[in-house]
C-alpha cells in the first residue's frame, strides 16, 4: 500500500492508502478528521470545502496521492486554539447555522474568498456555490459582510 505524507492543520501526517483514494476518506476514515463532510462526492455540493496550500478545494475529488507534501487545512484547523477565526465569529453573530452540516464548508469557502478580496461584492458572494439545503444563504451573505468588516 502506498504511503502519503502531508500536513493537516499544522501537523505532519502519513497515511497508507491507494493513490486514488479521495482525500476526504483519508481524512475522515484514516485520520479521524471529521469536520469536512460528504454531501455528493463529485464536487458539486462543496460540503467538504477545505484549504490546500491556502486555497479552497474539495477533498472529495482530490486523490490522496496529490496531497503529498502539501498543506491541508480543515475547519478544525481554522481557529487559533479557543480563539475563533473572525469568519467563525461572524457566523455566531448572525446565527447562520441551522442543521450545520454544510457550514464547515461554507465557512472555509468564505475564508478563502476573504483572503482573495478584502471587500467582497454581492457578485463575489454569489460565486460561492456551496449548497445549503436549510436555505441560510441570506445569513451567510450577512456574515461574510460582517466578517469583512471585522477583518478590515
Amino acid at each position, binding site marked *: 500500500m502506498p504511503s502519503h505524507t502531508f500536513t493537516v492543520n499544522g501537523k505532519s501526517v502519513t497515511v497508507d492508502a491507494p493513490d486514488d483514494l479521495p482525500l476526504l476518506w483519508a481524512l475522515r476514515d484514516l485520520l479521524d478528521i471529521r469536520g469536512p463532510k460528504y454531501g455528493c462526492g463529485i464536487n458539486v455540493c462543496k460540503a467538504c470545502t477545505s484549504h490546500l496550500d491556502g486555497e479552497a478545494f474539495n477533498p472529495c475529488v482530490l486523490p490522496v496521492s496529490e496531497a503529498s507534501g502539501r498543506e491541508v487545512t480543515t475547519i*478544525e484547523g481554522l481557529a487559533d486554539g479557543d480563539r475563533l477565526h473572525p469568519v467563525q465569529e461572524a457566523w455566531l453573530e448572525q446565527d447562520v447555522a441551522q442543521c450545520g452540516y454544510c457550514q464547515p464548508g461554507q465557512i472555509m469557502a468564505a475564508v478563502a474568498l476573504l483572503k482573495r478580496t478584502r471587500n467582497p461584492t454581492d457578485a463575489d458572494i454569489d460565486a460561492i456555490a456551496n449548497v445549503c439545503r436549510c436555505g441560510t444563504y441570506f445569513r451567510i451573505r450577512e456574515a461574510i459582510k460582517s466578517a469583512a468588516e471585522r477583518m478590515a
Partner: protein
Amino acid sequence: MTRHARRRFLTYLVAAPALAVATRFGVEAYAPGSADAAIPTPPAPADLVDLGDLLILAGKPTADMLVLSVDEDGGVDFRLPREEVGQGLTTAVAMLVAEELDTPLDRVRVHLEDARPELLFNQLTGSSNAVRSLYDPVRRTAAAARARMVAAAARQWGLKASELTVRAGVVVAPDGRTASYGSLTTAAATLDLGSLTVTPKKESEHTLVGTPTSRIDARALVTGSHPYTLDLDVPGAKPCMVRRPPTINGTVTSVGNEAAVRAMPGVVDVVVIDSGVAVVAETFGQALDGKNALEVTWGGGTVDTLSDSDIRARLKAATPSLDLLGALVRKVDTEFDFAFASHAPLETNSAVADVRPDRAEIWSGLKSPIVAQAAIAQAVGLPVSKVTVHVMQSGGSFGRRLFYDAALEAAVVSKKSGRPVRLMWSRIDDMRHGRMRPATHHRVRATYAAGQVLTFQHRVAAVETDFRHGLGDAVTAAAASLPTGLGNATFAQTLFLTTVKSPYDFGVTTQTLTEVPLRMHTGSWRSVYSANTRGAEEIVVDELAARLGKDPVDFRRSFLKTDRQRAVLDRAATEGDWGRELPDGWAQGIGFHEEYKSCTACLVEIDATDPKKPRVARAVIVADVGRVINPRGLEAQLLGGLTDAISTTLRAGLHIDKGLPLEGSYSQFHYARQKDAPKDVRIHVIEGAGEPGGAGELGVPAAVGAVANAYARATGTKPRSFPVNFDVDFTPFPR
C-alpha cells in the same frame, strides 16, 4: 379567530375531546358581525381541529413523562423526546427550561432521548408540532424542579419557600444567604418535601423566552466539532455502502462477481439485503468503489414502465371533475402540476449499527424512533427491549427522517456481517431511491359575481404519500376528536383535511384529495400538501383579483377572515413597499398562508428579465405564530421556507424516467444556491400571545404563491406547471 377563542378551545380539547368543542368553537369564532360583505366560508375541518391538535391529544397521556436532572455543579440536563434536524428545537426547549428554573441558558444541556416505547405517541417529530406539544409539559417539568430546589433550601434554612427567590441558579434568602442548585440537588432529590404545587411562571414574567437567542450548539457547528451520525467513533464499525437497483424497488436476483469485489483493496464483506447489495470496507471510498464494481442481475421494480408523462396522465385522470355550474356564473377555471421533489438533506441517509446475537445498538437521525426500534427489532429477531436506538442530531430533514431506511439497512447488514457498520447512502442513491414529495395535479374552479367570490373548489390528485412511520397510529388514537364527517375518510384524506384550509371567505369552499397508489418512495415534505395546494390557490387568488379589477393585496384584505390575518398582510405590504415602481422584467408578488394557529404573508420581488433565469432579489416575510419562544430561530425557519419555495417553484424537481428519477445530485436537482437566493430578506415577527402556533413549515406555501405570482406578473405568463424552468439540462448518471 380571536386569541381568546383559541385559548379556550385548546384548553377544552385537552381536557375532554371533541365534537362539542368543535361546534362551540365554530360558533364563537365565526359568528356573523364582521363588517365586510364577503360571503362567509364555514370553518373547514382544519379550522376546528388541525393535525397538531390531534398529535397533542394523542401524546397527552405521556406528555409529562419528561426527564430533567440537575447535577452537583448546577448543570441541568434535559432529555428531549424529539429530534433536532436544524429547526432549532433544542435551543427553544433549553430556553423554556432556563426560564422556569431561573438559571443561565448555558447551564442547560439538551440531549435527544433514546427511543422510549412507553412514550407511545409522544416521541414523534413532525407536523410543526414540537413546540406546540412541548410548551406546557417542559415548563411544568422545569417548574417542578425549581420548586423542589426552593423547598430543599427552605427546609435547610428553616424558612418558608415563599420567602425565597432564585437568581441565576442560586436560591437566595431574605437575609442574603445563598445556596446554589448544585449544592441543593441531592437534598431536593431525597428529602420528603411533601407534595408541591407547581405553577409555571406567568408569561408576562418571562425574561429569556421571547428574546432573540442564538443556537445553543452554534459554536460546535461552526468549529466542525458537532458529531453527526457518521462522525461517531463506535469501536470496530466499518464503512458500508449499498448498491441499489436501476429502478425504484427493484430486487436482487444474483451477484455475478462477489469474489472479485471481495478481493478489492479494503473490502471486508459483501452482503445481500432486501434493498440491494451492501459492501463493507475499511473506508467509504473503498466501499463506494466496491459497490460500483458489483455486477448484479436485478429483478423488476414497482414502477418500471412509468415516466413523468404517464404519472401526470394518471394524476389527471384521477382528479375528480368539478361541479357543473350555471352558464351565467363567471369563473376562473384552471389546472396545475407539481413535480416530485427530493428532500435532499445535505447529510444523506446514514446510520451506525452494532447488532449482536443478544442485543443491538443503533445510532441514526430519527424523527419516529419508537417505530424504527420496533421495525429493527423485528428485522433482526430481537425483543424491542434489547434494541437500543440512539437519536442523533441530523444534517437536515424536511420530512425525510420520519423514515428509518438507513437504520434498518445498517441493522440488517450488521447482523448478517457479524460486525458493527457505519452505513451511508451515496448522494445519487439518496436522490434516486430516497424519499420524495409526491407529484400532484390540481383542478381549481372559483366562481364570482357582483364583486364576490361565490364558490371555491379545489380537487387535488397526488401520488400516494407514505405515512407508515407512526403518524397514522397517533391520528387513529385521537380519531374520536375528529370533526363530524371525517370518520370515514381514509388516513391520507384525514391528514389532508386536518392540514389544508383556506384563509379566505370565498363562499362555498371545498378542498379534496384523491391519491394514486403508486409504489414509490414518497414521504411528507415540509408543509406536506400545503406547499402545492395552498401555493396553487394563492395563484388563483391573484387571478380572481385581476378578474374583479382589484389589487392583489386589497383583494386579499377584503376576503381574509380575521383581523389577525389582515394585520399580517398589511404589515407585509407596508414593509415590502407594495406597488413600488420596478424596472421592466421585474415584479412583486404576494402570498398568504395560515396553518397550525399561525399565519404569514410573503412579499417578493423577482428579476425575470431572462425568464429562464429568474432571481428573487428581495423578500419581506411577516408572521404571527402566537407566542414566540425564540424570534431568531423562528426567523431562521421562515428564511428556510422561503428558500424551499424559491427552489421548488422555479427550478428544483425530479423527473421520473422509466421507474427512476433522472436527477442524482445537486448539479441536477436544482435546489437554490447563493446566486439564486435574495440579497435582501426582511423578516418581521408580530409579537403574539396565547399558545405557540406551528412554525416549522409555515413559510413554504405563502412563499410558493408569492414567487409564482411575481414570476407571472414579471413575465406576463400564467405558470401552471412547477417548477417553471424544468428542462433536463444535464447528462444523467448511469443507472
